[in-house]
């Protein structure tokens, strides 16, 4: 193999599995260290830089970081990253003075946003400090978009939502509530310099099977129903409820039903539960509340008796894997009685307000054609983000779309090329403090993942807005932070210094280092000290070593970043260096590269 090019920022970035997996590339290990030091406000602000809504995401993020977490590969359970984020948010204190300053002198550019959800708010958050003026049009009487209407208050309290939205609105955003946009053409005529559409994917999918329209009062579309619940328009439901679909919306629907008077709630999945799109933790929480999960049941008919819904008839399915394709077959039919039925089978984009002749191209699913990098539609100056761009994803993706759209809008308003974007950069600084001292907690803590305390099952149903998760106590957080392996403290190798004494190889607790003759990757992976079986994780290969011409190989898969290789290295050929990913945001200039501290 060729020597690994660690000057490419992607190499060390990928070692930080959580940060690599996060759409917004939040610097997770660094904020966990700040929490460990009790610097909650600093941790919060570091979070806010990339993900804008730490308090909200600390509760309801989709957490792509956690399945990626190295700790999950080393000893089963990942670090409770999301819960730690909440610790920072809950304990941050007053940070209002540390938020970006908004210039009084504006730059004369006016931007319109459609929808006051997380994507639009992120764009405003990035551009307000640069002197832009923002008008956000929102059809509801409160901002927040799907965060407010679709996430029940028992998971995300309204106060948390309001606080973090206000941080942005208070920058001076002209937020126009109760003002739905019904025509893009009219909006275009108002003379904005750019328009950002962050209106979400607001249409719940329907299930058009017999009986659907015979008792519409008791058949609900999931996301619309959740919205009505959120705004207090609905405050009761029948005793027996069937939720059709088993995604995260279904989990919110079933748990909301329990809080509105239902006793017998079943989630009906068409496929096996192992294939559900719901997050594990949301599924677990629903099961904890005695929601019954019924799998392999495909809806056939709404059953109506005396003009009122009586239940639903299902086809019981059997699935077989046929060369990677899932084959289904009906094995039986079964009737489930119900007083109410909630459809939570997905949602889609809807743009009835975008005229077809104004240059915004829609594809065959009536979704706008949006550039994945610039977030610009086919009409220059109109940008999309969040669910409205590429269909339903999640909050953290919407935030990242917002950041990218903000960069584009800034360039667009200054007549710059949208595709000429700053690249990610990486800065490395040594963490060496003394002969065997590092500026991070390098010892491996074998503690198991802490469980977050919940409000008791007796208490939590008393009101619809009792937040179920209590968040970590200070003691729990102190243990959980130490579980983080500090993957951003990189093992940096200087081949010319190595004397091949084997000290690093002998001490490595996970046998991830080998000095051996070079070879091609497949062959090399097989003859390392511990075979490198996880091909998702790269091998680091050094330049040829001075004394024997062999190479140092590191399998990145299992490294616990304990720094023992560097402690045992007599020539400091290994060093533990903190990597900081420089993420470009709107208005950033090309930074001068940091001077190289050490020449090999």
């Amino acid at each position: 193999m060729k020597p690994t090019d660690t000057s490419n920022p992607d190499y060390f970035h990928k070692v930080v599995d959580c940060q690599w997996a996060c759409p917004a590339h939040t610097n997770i290990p660094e904020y966990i260290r700040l929490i460990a030091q009790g610097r909650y406000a600093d941790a919060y602000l570091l979070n806010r830089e990339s993900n804008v809504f730490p308090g909200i995401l600390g509760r309801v993020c989709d957490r792509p970081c956690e399945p990626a977490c190295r700790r999950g590969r080393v000893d089963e359970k990942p670090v409770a990253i999301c819960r730690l984020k909440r610790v920072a948010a809950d304990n941050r204190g007053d940070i209002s003075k540390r938020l970006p300053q908004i210039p009084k002198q504006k730059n004369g550019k006016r931007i319109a946003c459609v929808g006051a959800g997380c994507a639009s708010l992120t764009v405003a958050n990035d551009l307000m400090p640069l002197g832009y003026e923002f008008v956000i049009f929102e059809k509801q009487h409160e901002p927040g978009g799907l965060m407010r209407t679709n996430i029940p208050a028992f998971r995300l309290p309204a106060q948390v939502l309001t606080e973090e939205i206000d941080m942005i609105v208070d920058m001076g955003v002209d937020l126009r509530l109760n003002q739905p946009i019904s025509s893009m053409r009219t909006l275009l005529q108002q003379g904005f310099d750019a328009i950002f559409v962050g209106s979400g994917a607001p249409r719940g999918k329907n299930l058009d099977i017999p009986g659907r329209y015979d008792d519409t009062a008791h058949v609900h579309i999931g996301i619309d129903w959740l919205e009505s619940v959120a705004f207090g328009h609905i405050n009761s439901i029948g005793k027996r409820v069937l939720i059709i679909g088993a995604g995260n919306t279904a989990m919110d629907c079933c748990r909301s039903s329990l809080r509105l008077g239902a006793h017998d709630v079943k989630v009906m999945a068409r496929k096996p539960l192992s294939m559900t799109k719901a997050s594990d933790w949301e599924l677990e929480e629903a099961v904890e509340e005695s929601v019954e999960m019924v799998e392999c049941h495909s809806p056939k008919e709404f059953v109506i008796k005396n003009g009122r819904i009586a239940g639903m008839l299902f086809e019981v399915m059997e699935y077989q894997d046929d060369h990677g394709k899932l084959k289904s077959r009906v094995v039986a039919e079964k009737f489930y009685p119900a007083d109410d039925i909630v459809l939570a089978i997905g949602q889609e984009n809807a743009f009835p307000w975008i005229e077809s002749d104004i240059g915004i191209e829609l594809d065959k699913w009536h979704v706008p054609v949006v550039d994945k990098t610039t977030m610009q539609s086919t009409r220059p100056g109109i940008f999309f983000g969040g669910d409205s761009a590429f269909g339903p994803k999640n909050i953290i993706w919407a935030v990242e779309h917002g950041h990218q759209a903000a960069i584009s809008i800034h360039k667009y308003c200054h007549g710059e090329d949208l595709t000429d974007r700053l690249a990610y950069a990486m800065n490395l600084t040594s963490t060496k403090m003394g002969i065997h001292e590092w500026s991070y907690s390098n010892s491996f803590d074998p503690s198991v993942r802490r469980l977050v305390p919940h409000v008791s099952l007796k208490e939590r149903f008393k009101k619809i807005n009792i937040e179920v998760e209590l968040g970590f106590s200070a003691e729990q957080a102190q243990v959980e932070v130490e579980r983080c392996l500090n993957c951003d403290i990189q093992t940096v190798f200087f081949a010319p210094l190595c004397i091949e004494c084997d000290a690093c190889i002998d001490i490595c607790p996970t046998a991830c280092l080998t000095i051996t003759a070079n070879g091609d990757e497949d062959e090399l992976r097989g003859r390392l000290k511990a075979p490198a079986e996880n091909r998702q994780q790269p091998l680091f290969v050094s330049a040829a070593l001075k004394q024997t011409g062999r190479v140092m190989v590191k399998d990145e898969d299992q490294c616990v970043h304990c720094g023992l290789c560097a402690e045992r290295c007599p020539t400091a050929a290994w060093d533990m260096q903190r990597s900081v990913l420089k993420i470009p945001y709107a208005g950033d200039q090309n930074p001068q590269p940091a001077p190289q501290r050490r020449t090999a």
Partner: protein
Amino acid sequence: MSFMQKPKVSHSQRLHNELGLSLRDYEGSMSTLCAGCGHDSITAAIIQAFWELNIEPHKVAKMSGIGCSSKTPAYFLSQAHGINAVHGRMPSIATGANAADRNLYYIGVSGDGDSLSIGLGQFIHALRRNLNMLYIIENNGVYGLTKGQFSASADVGSKAKKGEVNLQPPIDPAIAALTLGGSFVARSFSGDKAQLVPLIKAGIMHNGFAMLDVLSPCVTFNDHEDSTKSYAHTRQFYHPAVHADFIPSKQPIRAAYDNGDAMPVELHDGSTVVLRKVSKDYNPTDRAQAYSYLHAHQKRGEIVTGLLYIDEAQREMHELSNTVGQALRDLPYSELCPGSAALEELQSQYC
């Protein structure tokens, strides 16, 4: 040394030997030696060898004297027995322990100071009585614990860190062992585990005194440019003469050995050492030839390594003195100490 313990991460314990033990189960406490010390590498090789041999750690006795090398038994096989003896006197203690229980595996770890200076007399007598043990000399040419004075194995012309030149000729433990009738003479290098681990295994299974001289650079006091015991110098003048492959008794020997390149030697317990010779004219069972080969290459400044000489037929101490097969603690007390009447009867034979 490090302030923290080597973490026990589950991944590192997933490979198991026939006893169901992981490599980590053969470790000891954290080393307090200097970072990069060759001794730590030898420790790792010992751990690897015992693990691969499927030897239960409590069936092993670790013996050592004084010095950096002699600290290392603390760093492997924490479940084994061990004595850290007086400086240079480890061979006597090992003889006593072996006399009392011949059924343990004995491994002695000594250094060039412990074995070639203060303990030279002890070392050569243990060798002479062919005590059944593996005797490793971790050889770095300096007294590391007292800050780098030349030891008895320092080469003529080698410079100390501050510049003094060594003028006295070295004692070469391999040549000493050959001339004194050693039954197993080997040399290796801490930086070459591929060679070292099989040699340790063969030495453990050899029936008699297995002398293994391991060049083990002192990174702190003897790894500079003008040292002849540095990593760089050792690699430059490295001359492997014989590769030894250790094959446990249960495994069939598959390879065919033609043209005298390889030579299988069966050990006492049925396992085999296959000697693959780098130079065809070298015969590791011919003492005189081994001596002259070593001598010739030493003159050229080369470091000859490998299993240099082996004679599995030599009788070890217990066989020479016709002692019982059991450990003394397993003998019934009446046999171990037959009483004063028996003593008198014995003495009356000499009247």
